[in-house]
């Protein structure tokens, strides 16, 4: 286990370096995009190795204990953001906002207890991997939308207007954030369906209002509400950005808060 943790520490160091370089780049008006991407990719490679070693040792994926949930969520969020960073060069300056957000989760991860948990027999199904994988794509899409929305809100508040000038105008960022939310809605819906199929096979009910199911549905409603509100009221970029942040807070409570207060992700269903 020592080796896994050492590699994880190295990954965290690489992520922190990526964030620091991104922030310094925006503050100094420079564009060290290649360095940021290299650090992010290095962090991802190291964290993937750490997760693979733990998976091999325990015989199950990283989704039982709080440490594992945090670790896999950091990995999936970084993967989603790195993909967006690579494929949409014009939004790369948002790394200065997104990476500090990631620091909070990284700090939490490093203080979580890395001990192993019990893998219940009802978790031994491909639907678990499909369910979790779809949820992680949803969270990744929302994280990219949050980065874009934070830039819109900072501009609106008169913060770092010059520093973030290299980014497209707020209307374009808003359109991108909307697209990310649309992707998020589709993957969140798929996650709920996969989870319901798994729950039916494992526990004989497709829905039972357990804490995580309830919060996941509330999150789905906040995403649907945000998309409809933008269409119905033609919201201005700052208002839409505020709603995107509200979705992120709800999703964060669902993905991190509920497992934190429950002994298992679906308490009572094990």
């Amino acid at each position, binding site marked *: 286990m020592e080796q896994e943790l050492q590699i994880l520490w190295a990954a965290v160091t690489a992520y922190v370096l990526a964030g620091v370089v991104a922030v310094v780049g925006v503050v100094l008006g420079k564009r060290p995009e290649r360095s940021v991407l290299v650090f992010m990719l290095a962090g991802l490679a190291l964290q993937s190795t750490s997760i693979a070693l733990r998976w091999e040792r325990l015989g199950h994926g990283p989704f039982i204990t709080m440490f594992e949930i945090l670790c896999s969520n950091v990995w999936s969020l970084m993967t989603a953001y790195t993909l967006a960073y690579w*494929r*949409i*060069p*014009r939004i790369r300056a948002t790394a200065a906002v997104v990476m500090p957000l990631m620091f909070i989760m990284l700090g939490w991860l490093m203080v979580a207890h890395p001990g192993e948990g*019990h893998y*219940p*027999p*009802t978790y*031994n*199904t491909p639907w678990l991997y499909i369910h979790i994988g779809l949820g992680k794509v949803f969270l990744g899409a929302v994280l990219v939308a949050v980065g874009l929305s934070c830039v819109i809100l900072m501009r609106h508040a008169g913060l770092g207007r010059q520093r973030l000038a290299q980014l*497209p105008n707020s209307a*374009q960022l808003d359109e*991108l954030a909307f*697209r990310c939310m*649309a*992707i998020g*809605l*589709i993957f969140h*819906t*798929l996650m709920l*369906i996969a989870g319901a*199929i798994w729950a*039916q*096979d*494992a*526990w*004989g*009910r*497709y829905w039972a*209002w357990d*804490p995580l199911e*309830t919060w996941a*549905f*509330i999150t789905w*409603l*906040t995403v*649907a*509400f945000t998309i*409809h*509100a933008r*269409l*119905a*009221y033609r919201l201005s970029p700052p208002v839409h950005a505020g709603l995107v942040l509200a979705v992120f807070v709800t999703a964060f409570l669902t993905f991190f808060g509920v497992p934190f207060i429950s002994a298992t992700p679906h308490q009572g269903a094990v």
Partner: protein
Amino acid sequence: MVCTVKEDKGTQRNAEQAWADHTKAQKGHSTVASALRSLASLRLTLILIALLGFGIAFAYLWEGARTWPLVIPLILLSLNLLAAVLTNVVFRRQTALLVFHLALVALLLLVAAGRLTYLNGYVGVTEGVPFDGVLSESEHGPMHAGEFSRIRFVNRGFRIDYAPGLQRGATLNEVAWVGPDGRWHESRIGDQEPLILSGYRFYTTFNKGFAPTFRWRSAEGTELRGSVQLPPYPLKEYSQAAEWAPPGSGLSIWVMLDIDEILLDPAQHTSFRLPERYKLVVRIGRDRHEMRPGELLQTSEGVLQFEGLRSWMGYRVFYDWTLPWLLSACAVAVLSLSTHFWKKFAARPWDA
């Protein structure tokens, strides 16, 4: 001439009446159209989504309030969606969006139909004793019309391994049933594999335990077999006792299993098994007896014979005919929504 004038007056009156009727009908149509437009409002959708959110929070906090706080916003949302589909031109221009919203309406209606016709129950079945179609606990929707009482199957035993710390492993349960062809079929069910008979799904649960089986011969000469399912093991390891009344008798037989060995060692890898060293304590009134397999006990109302110890498995029973339709509606909804956004976003590049 007079006649013509009269006719003209009549025609004019008819025309006036017709015009009045037409105006009234138009007013009626416009009232309906305006009501439909109000019902179809996107702003109302937003309010109803928020209302559903409150309903969910309410249902989550109060377990007894899981019907109306959810059903009312769901019905209103389906009406809002239907009205939107009928009145909004957008849905005629964008087929994928129309299909998505129709799939949502279908989903809402299917969930409601499922709630009206579902069955949820529980039954413990002793190994080798055929299930007789009677559940020990059940609840069902007001329109449930399945023929559950005809269902028969046999629990042929199970295997469950435990890791150190009494961590339960996979459940592997052998079952047999008579198919529609009149022949016996066998299969293995478990944690992700229910037994499905006539649409009823039997799921193994973590409830399982021991069941002493008896042969009862009453004073009148009638003979029957019965088993007493003791509380779940190892969940209630220290209260392995239950009461049993042989049918047709006024006796109350208290049975306790006193296990004289460690069955599931928390320090080792073990498997669920029947005990080898045990005493079966039988108490009838003030009389206490210890019985071994095959032993007879003469009572005031008949003869009780302890045949031996078996295991029992607890099954959760679930029936909801809407399941495949719900899945189909979900698939259509996701596919149409993805198509809609794909078309919308493909029109302009992401890195514009």
